[in-house]
């Protein structure tokens, strides 16, 4: 019965085109979330060769808050020729820095980002929106200022599951930031 659940999860993973959360898997399979979690764990171990079988050319990874099949990184070079990699153009330094500010300070208004960056960030914010890396979280009812937050797509592209996995800003900033906050 448990094994059967793993096979059904395998079938769905085969056609999924984005990371699937435990909840959405459980809903689709009419199964309990803990059971799905256990099955996922077993599948991960299975594909990693820890269940008696071979270490597969693919792996099951948790990225962006969900589970998805990936080519195992050992074989990324092997498949590179096979995929039409449409690598999006790299983000500029300005865009990366703005993204970092939003990631750590979200939800944050464009004006607040600009005051940290000390430059106008309008076009950069637009680029980040178009890339789907940030989204409009809410609009302040008093000031009308749109506040931005990062998206699951950002987590996916960073290969992490939650914002908690962002590296801590250096302790230097901690000191600095306090002074800065006071000033505002």
């Amino acid at each position, binding site marked *: 019965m448990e094994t059967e659940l793993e096979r059904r999860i395998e079938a769905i993973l085969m*056609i999924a085109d984005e990371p699937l959360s435990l909840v959405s898997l459980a809903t689709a399979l009419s199964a309990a979330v803990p059971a799905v979690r256990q099955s996922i764990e077993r599948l991960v171990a299975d594909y990693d060769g820890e269940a008696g079988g071979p270490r597969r050319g693919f792996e099951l990874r948790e990225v962006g808050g969900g589970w998805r099949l990936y080519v195992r990184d050992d074989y990324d070079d092997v498949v590179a020729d096979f995929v039409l990699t449409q690598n999006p153009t790299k983000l500029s330094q*300005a865009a990366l820095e703005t993204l*970092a500010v939003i990631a750590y300070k979200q939800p944050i208004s464009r*004006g607040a980002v600009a005051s940290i960056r000390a*430059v106008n960030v309008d076009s950069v914010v637009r680029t980040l929106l178009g890339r789907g890396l940030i989204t409009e979280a809410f609009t302040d009812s008093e000031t009308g200022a749109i506040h931005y937050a990062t998206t699951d797509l950002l987590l996916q592209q960073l290969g992490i599951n939650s914002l908690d996995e962002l590296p801590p800003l250096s302790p230097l900033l901690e000191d600095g930031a306090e*002074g800065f906050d006071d000033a505002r």
Partner: protein
Amino acid sequence: MPQPPSGDAPAVDTVDADQTDAVAGAGEVEEGEKRFRVAVRGFEGPFDLLLSLIAKHELDITDLALSTITDEFISYLAGLDSEEELDQASEFLVVAATLLDLKIAGLLPRGELVDAEDVALLEARDLLFARLLQYRAFKEAAGWFSQRFDSEGGRHPRIVRLEEKYRARTPELVWTVSLQDFAALAMLAFAPKEIPSVGLDHLHAPLVSIREQAAHVVALLRRGEPMTFRQLIAGAELKGVVVARFLAVLELYRHATIAFEQLEPLGELTLRWTAESWSEESLASLGTDYGN
């Protein structure tokens, strides 16, 4: 140790080796070779290193001739060709603006005369350091983002077309949009999105506004009579008001609207209106560096 602005600034001791390594190590996240290097009296090395030394109070900002750095930077700019280097250039501008503010704060007279005004100005200086630190921290974080994007960009998730048999079993689309509605949707999508400007003043109302104080200073000086700074701050009770008024004077000086005279170090500061054209709009752009 802070030095008075005039007089000979002693050469800063050479940076000890391990420190250089530490900072250079942090910078290696981004590729190193063609970064902007600075050579000013007492310091030679990457701009990054210069910054971190200033931030750690190990190099005195007042010892630096910013004009030399700027000159070097302009000639460095002339040799730029790639977009990446242009990124560095814009980064420099952000930091240079902060450095300039820092230097203005750093040039304040200090010495035996320690009074409330000086203390407040020192606090303002620390705030600018804080901004520098914050900028550096986010820059480092951006480096991490870039690395992750690169490494994750090389990974291959399974994305395949849905098999036809499943596609055939999806429920039929219920289309309810008329031709006119469809055109209206297009118009909605093409309409230029208003980018509402965000008045920071609403968000973090500052206790004292430099712009307001500048308006006050302008009003006093535009009458034409020179005034001393002491006269300018007469009646100001709040420490913050004095500081803001001083910063306003510096800002106005930067915009070449006023000139000042100081006959001897720590002597009386006399201010004079020199601007030929002045509009309220000029006032609006004042003090924006300070977030208000």
